[in-house]
């Protein structure tokens, strides 16, 4: 890949890097809050993607200036991003609220510990079943 392409499309490369970084954090990190941070990073890469799409070469910010023959960048992606940001905020808020509840219920927000606790819950279910069968017989 030539230096030319990198220079021309540096913003898209950042989009890809952010996207991958975000996904990586979600998948690999054990802490639930950090996963949410990863999700935010992933979503912000999309924001940058849209804004990059909206840029018209030689265009200025899409705010009416009153000067004639101004080239404006496309305002629509900006609007879409505002919506997406709001959605991201809501998602984050809900996620964090869930993390608080998880902490209260499980006393941990680390993935490996939570999986172990979940498994224990499952085993408890089976034990209850077994004891019921015993009492039935």
């Amino acid at each position: 890949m030539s230096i030319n392409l990198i220079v021309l499309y540096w913003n898209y490369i950042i989009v890809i890097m952010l996207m991958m970084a975000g996904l990586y954090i979600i998948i690999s990190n054990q802490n639930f809050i950090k996963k949410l941070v990863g999700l935010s990073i992933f979503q912000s890469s999309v924001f940058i993607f849209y804004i990059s799409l909206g840029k018209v070469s030689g265009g200025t910010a899409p705010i009416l200036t009153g000067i004639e023959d101004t080239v404006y960048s496309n305002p629509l992606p900006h609007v879409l991003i505002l919506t997406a940001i709001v959605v991201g905020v809501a998602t984050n808020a809900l996620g964090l609220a869930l993390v608080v509840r998880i902490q209260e219920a499980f006393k941990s927000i680390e993935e490996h510990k939570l999986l172990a606790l979940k498994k224990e819950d499952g085993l408890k279910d089976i034990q209850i079943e077994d004891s019921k069968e015993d009492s039935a017989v």
Partner: protein
Amino acid sequence: MLILDNIPALLVAIPLLASAVVSLLPSARIAWGFAFVTTLICLYMAFELVGIISSTQALSYAFGGWEPPWGIVFVLDSANVYLVLLVAFVSVIATLYAYTMLAREIAVEDLPKAYAVWLLAIASLFGLAMTGDAFNLFVFLEISALSSITLIALGAGQDRRALLAAYNYLIIGAIGATFYVIGVGYLYAATGSLNLIDITDRLNELGTNQAAITGLAFMLAGIMVKAGVFPVHIWLPAAYSYAPSAVSSLLAAVATKVAIYYFARLLFGIFIDITQLVDFFLLYILMPVSVLAIFYGTIAAIYQSDFKRLFALSSIAQIGYITFAFSLNSHSGISAGFIHIINHALIKGALFMAVGIFALGIGSRATMSSMQGVGRQMPITFAGFVLAGLALIGVPLTAGFISKLYLFKAIFETGNGFYVALIALSSVLSVLYLWKIFEVMWLKEPVQPLKIDKEPASAYLPVWLMVGVIMIFGVYSGEVISSGIGAANALIGAR
């Protein structure tokens, strides 16, 4: 007249506003009553819509008077109007069911807020079904996801694993939705429009465009997450299994179906002219994935002892049938898929509701060992459950049979005997897990007395209403069949 003209908007607006009001109401009963009346109003409006579409074939509602392609529109045609009716009907029944069941599974002081989120979920499903704008769909997708997550997390009162399931769904759902948005971005870059019909026209002019193809790929990936298509279904079993029963019923019945409808619209309505891509995707990606979904779901269900999880896995298999029907890439295939969307929604809704009542009866989760003989202790609910189970297998005189009939018709038209064998084999396998359940619940002696005096009529009434409709659709199937064919006509034109 004012109302009738604005029904599409009202179908979303009324539950939304009602949700705000309900969250402030003091008593759980009043909150429920308000929610129930709202769903009834939506049902009435949905019927009106069906009437309008049967005469005018298509309806386009522009918000704020802004004409497409600049404004956001809600589009109704034979493909989605029956889906809207389905969502309305199921929400009425589920809300009726929630009166008894949600109250027993969630703390009383939380109920008004629960109903508020419930109405939000319903509003978002209407929006999803009707919208004709790609980005607007993302918004409704997220509203639906967030409200579903909240509803699922409410199950934490009974089992704390509901929180983990909700979190899982949040992460995976958000990734899916973001993929969808990336897809919309590519599509916008290629066509310059967000209106679905406009995009279709512009794609026709463009021909094969790399950006459009990439956009489609991302959009489909995102929708598949929401629809619970294998292998991105992983959030589904845990979510349906730990959520409160009323929530499981509502979500299992309609939430994934709306996403599948949109999936079909993308593939057949919008991208249909990029034939090499769509054909390739359907044959080499969707079909193997659907077959895997069918067998994975069925076989995992056979080995599963927790009832709710079992039926969640069964849902994955059934969604596999629907996507398999679509992957046949024919008019009959699309009809068969849409017919099964309607029938399966009713069947799964009834099944989950019945399982909830059984769990209530014994005071703990419904599993193979805890459910011994419970069928004899709760015969009315069990009878409805059995009928819904027979419909799931596809016994004649139930709605499930009509789905099977048209699915096989579509398969035979492709002339491929291998597909016939696959689907026939999976039908036999699905009999296995239902037979196991029947044996445990009816043929064995009860091991413990029930925790309740008798089956709550207010809870099994919704089950029987659903079952009644399932049986009626099994006998008088003309409406469902013509809705499926109408959907196929709307998407790819009459054959």
